[in-house]
C-alpha cells in the first residue's frame, strides 16, 4: 500500500474516531474494570462503553483485520498499525476483547468452513457471544494431548463427559471450544476433535479456581452428558490436534507479546521503578538495565517475526522462543517491581494497588500455554535438531 493511500486512511480514521469515540472511552483504561468482554450476560459499565462497542462493531473495528463479510474491517497490516496508532493517539479504550477474537476467530478463519465463519464470527465481532477455551485437563499438565474428556458418537451428535481446567472466564462465557477425545483407540494425538459447545445446557457446569494471586478468571468446567451436534466441529473429526497446535502457537505469541516493545507502548522499567524509589541501589539498577535491554530487544524480535511472516518467511518455531523469553522476562520485570515497591508492595490492595497480585500472576506465564521447559524442548528438537 502506498504511503499516500495510508495517509488518506489515517485522516479518515482520525475524523471517524474524533466523532465516534465517546470522551469517557478516551482514558486508555486497560485494567479489568475498563475492559468490555461482551457476551449474552454482559452488563455495560456505562452507556459510553455500549455506544463505543456498537459503533466500532458497525465499522468492523472490533476485529480490524478480519474480512468484512465476517464482521471485520478488512484492514491490511499497515492499516492496522495506523489503526492502533490513532487509537493510541486519543488514548481510546479497546472496544472489545475476547477469547473469540484472540483464539477461536483465528482458528475458524484458518480451519472453519464458510458456513461456520458466517455463523460464528460476526457474533464474536459484535460482542454478542462470549467464548472460553477448554484445553487442559486436571493432571495433564504439559502433556496437552493427554485428553480424557470423551465424546461418544451418537449419530447426529456427540455425548460429552469429562472435566477441563484453566478454562478462563468459563463462568461468564456463553460457548466453549474444547478438545474432546472422539476416538479412544487411536494414538494419543490422533483421536482428538475440536468441538464448539453451547454452555447453556444442563450438562455443563463451571467452578472458579482461586489462585495464589487471589481471585482469578480461571475455572474448572465439567461436562456431564453434554450434547454437541455434529456440525459444531472445527476441522475434521479426530484431527482436532492440528487446530489445537495452531492455536497454541497463536497463544504463545499473544502471551510473549506482553513484554512490550520499542514501538512506544512499553513503558521504560526505570520510570516505573522510579515512581516508588528516589534512588535505585546498584543491584536494582543493574538488574533494571539488563531487564530493559532484554525487554526492548524482545520487543524488536516480535516486530521482526511479524515482518518475516508478512514477507512470507516462516518464523518456524519462533513462537516457542518468544513465549519462553517473553514470559521469563516478564517474571523478572515483576520481581524488580516488587523490589522497587518495598513494603508498600507487600499488601493486598495497598498503596501500589494490586502489584503483588500482578507479580504472582506472572508466575503462571511460564506455565500456561506450554511451560518454559516444553518451549525449550521444542526449540531443542525442532530448531536445533537435537535427538529427542
Amino acid at each position, binding site marked *: 500500500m502506498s504511503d499516500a493511500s495510508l495517509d488518506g486512511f489515517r485522516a479518515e480514521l482520525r475524523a471517524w474516531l474524533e466523532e465516534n469515540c465517546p470522551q469517557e472511552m478516551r482514558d486508555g483504561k486497560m485494567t479489568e474494570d475498563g475492559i468490555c468482554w461482551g457476551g449474552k450476560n454482559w452488563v455495560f459499565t456505562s452507556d459510553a462503553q455500549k455506544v463505543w462497542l456498537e459503533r466500532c462493531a458497525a465499522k468492523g473495528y472490533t476485529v480490524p483485520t478480519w474480512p468484512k463479510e465476517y464482521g471485520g474491517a478488512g484492514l491490511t497490516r499497515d492499516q492496522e498499525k495506523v489503526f492502533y496508532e490513532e487509537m493510541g493517539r486519543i488514548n481510546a479504550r479497546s472496544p472489545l476483547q475476547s477469547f473469540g477474537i484472540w483464539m477461536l476467530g483465528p482458528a475458524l478463519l484458518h480451519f472453519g468452513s464458510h458456513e461456520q465463519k458466517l455463523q460464528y464470527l460476526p457474533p464474536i465481532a459484535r460482542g454478542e457471544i462470549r467464548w472460553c477455551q477448554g484445553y*487442559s485437563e486436571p493432571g495433564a499438565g*504439559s502433556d496437552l494431548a493427554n485428553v480424557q474428556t470423551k465424546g461418544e458418537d451418537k449419530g447426529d451428535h456427540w455425548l460429552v463427559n469429562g472435566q477441563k*481446567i484453566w478454562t478462563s472466564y468459563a463462568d461468564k462465557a456463553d460457548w466453549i471450544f474444547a478438545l474432546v477425545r472422539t476416538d479412544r483407540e487411536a494414538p494419543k494425538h490422533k483421536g482428538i476433535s475440536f468441538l464448539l459447545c453451547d454452555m447453556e445446557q444442563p450438562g455443563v457446569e463451571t467452578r472458579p*479456581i482461586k*489462585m*495464589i*494471586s487471589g481471585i482469578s478468571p480461571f475455572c474448572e468446567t465439567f461436562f456431564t452428558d453434554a450434547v454437541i451436534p455434529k456440525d459444531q466441529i472445527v476441522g475434521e473429526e479426530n484431527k482436532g490436534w492440528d487446530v489445537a497446535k495452531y492455536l497454541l502457537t497463536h497463544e504463545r505469541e499473544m502471551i510473549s507479546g506482553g513484554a512490550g516493545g520499542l514501538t512506544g507502548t512499553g513503558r521504560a522499567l526505570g520510570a516505573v521503578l522510579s515512581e516508588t524509589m528516589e534512588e535505585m541501589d546498584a*543491584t536494582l539498577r543493574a538488574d533494571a538495565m539488563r531487564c530493559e535491554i532484554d525487554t526492548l530487544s524482545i520487543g524488536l524480535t516480535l516486530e521482526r517475526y511479524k515482518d518475516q511472516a508478512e514477507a512470507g518467511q516462516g518464523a518456524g518455531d519462533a513462537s516457542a522462543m518468544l513465549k519462553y523469553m517473553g514470559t521469563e522476562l516478564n517474571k523478572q520485570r515483576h520481581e524488580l517491581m516488587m523490589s522497587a515497591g518495598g513494603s508498600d508492595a507487600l499488601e493486598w490492595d495497598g498503596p501500589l494497588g494490586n502489584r503483588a497480585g500482578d507479580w504472582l500472576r506472572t*508466575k503462571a506465564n511460564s*506455565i500456561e500455554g506450554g511451560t518454559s521447559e516444553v518451549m525449550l524442548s521444542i526449540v531443542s528438537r525442532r530448531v536445533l535438531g537435537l535427538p529427542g
Partner: protein
Amino acid sequence: MAKLVKTEEENMLADMARGFLDGAAPVSKLRQMRDDGVTHDPALWKEMAEMGWAGVLVPEDAGGSDMGFAAANVIAEEMGKTLAVSPFISTAVIAATALRQVSGARAREALGRIASGEATYALAVDEGIKFDPDATQMEAKADGNGFRLNGRKQFVVDGALADRLLVLARTEDGLTLFDIPSDRAGVERTKSNMIDARDSARIEFTDVEATGDDVLGQVDQAMTVLKPAIEAGQAALAAELTGLAAGAFDMTVGYLKERKQFGVEIGRFQALQHRAAHLWCETEVTASAILHAGRKLDEDPENAGLAVSLAKARATATAKLAVIEGVQMHGGIGMTDAYDMGFYMKRARVGAEWLGDYSYHAERVAAARGF
C-alpha cells in the same frame, strides 16, 4: 569459635521443634488462620513460651531459657519449614535482645513477661518502603520530663496485635528507642492486609506521651540497644527463610518423584534434575552462613555484622530461588491457592523485605569487605 556444626543440643532442639510444629503449626494451620482472618494464635504462642522459645534469649534468672542466638536460629529455621505463625522474631529475638542490653528492674521484668509469653512486641522502625533506621524522621520532642512522639511507621511486623512497641524516633542529638504499650493514647494502628497473611501494621503516632522510663537505653543512643537487636532479628529471619527454602525444596523434590508427565516421573528429566540439584547446593551454602551468623552472635556479637548480612543476603536469594523453582516445577497446580506452594512464595517475599533486602545487606557486606 565453636565449630560450624550443630551441637547435640541444637540437633535435639531442632528435632523437638520439628515434631511440635508438624503437629501444632503445619502449613494447613496458616491456611486456616488466613481463611479466618486471624494473624495471631495466643494459645500457640503460650505453648511456645512453655517450651522455652519465648524466653530463648531471656536470662535464666529473669525466667528465660537463655539458649542463645544459634538456638534461636534453630527454632526460627524450623518455623520457616512449616511457615509457623508467631511473634517469635519480633518478641523473643528482637525485643528480648534489645531489653538484654539494658540493666535495671524494669527491663528485667519486661524480659520476664516475654519469657512467660505474657507480652508480645513489635519493632516500629520503617517509615519508607525500605528498611533504613538511619533515615528515621519520626520526632520525639522533649516535653517537660518526657517526650512527645509524632510521626508514622509502616511495615511494623506483628504490630497490629503486639502488646508493646519498640519505637525508633529522632531526639535532639540522635535516635532514641522507646518501649511503650501499644494502647497508649495517640497510637493509631491500622492493620495491613499482608500477602503472607501475617500481622503487620501501619501506625500513626499523634502527640504520644513518653516518659524517661519508656526510653530503652540512653537518650540519643538508640543504636547501642537496637543494633544487636536488629542483627539478632536479621539472623533469625535469615534462618526462617532458610527453613522456608528447605520446606519448599522438599515439597518440590517430592513432587518431582511422584508427578508423571508424558508417561514418566518428571524427576527423570535431566533439566529438572540439574536445576533441583543446583537449588540444593544453594541451600547447603546458605545453611553455612546461617550457622556462622549464630556462632558469631553468641561468641563475638560486637563484630557479627558481616556474618549477619551474609546470612540474610544468602537466605533471601536462596528462598527466592526455592519458591520460584517450586512454583515452576509444580506447574499449574502450584499456582492454585489450594496448593501450599503459594504460601511459601508470599512469605519469602515478605521475608526478603523485612529488616533489609538483598541490596541492603549486599551493600553492608561490601562495606565490611572494604568496597
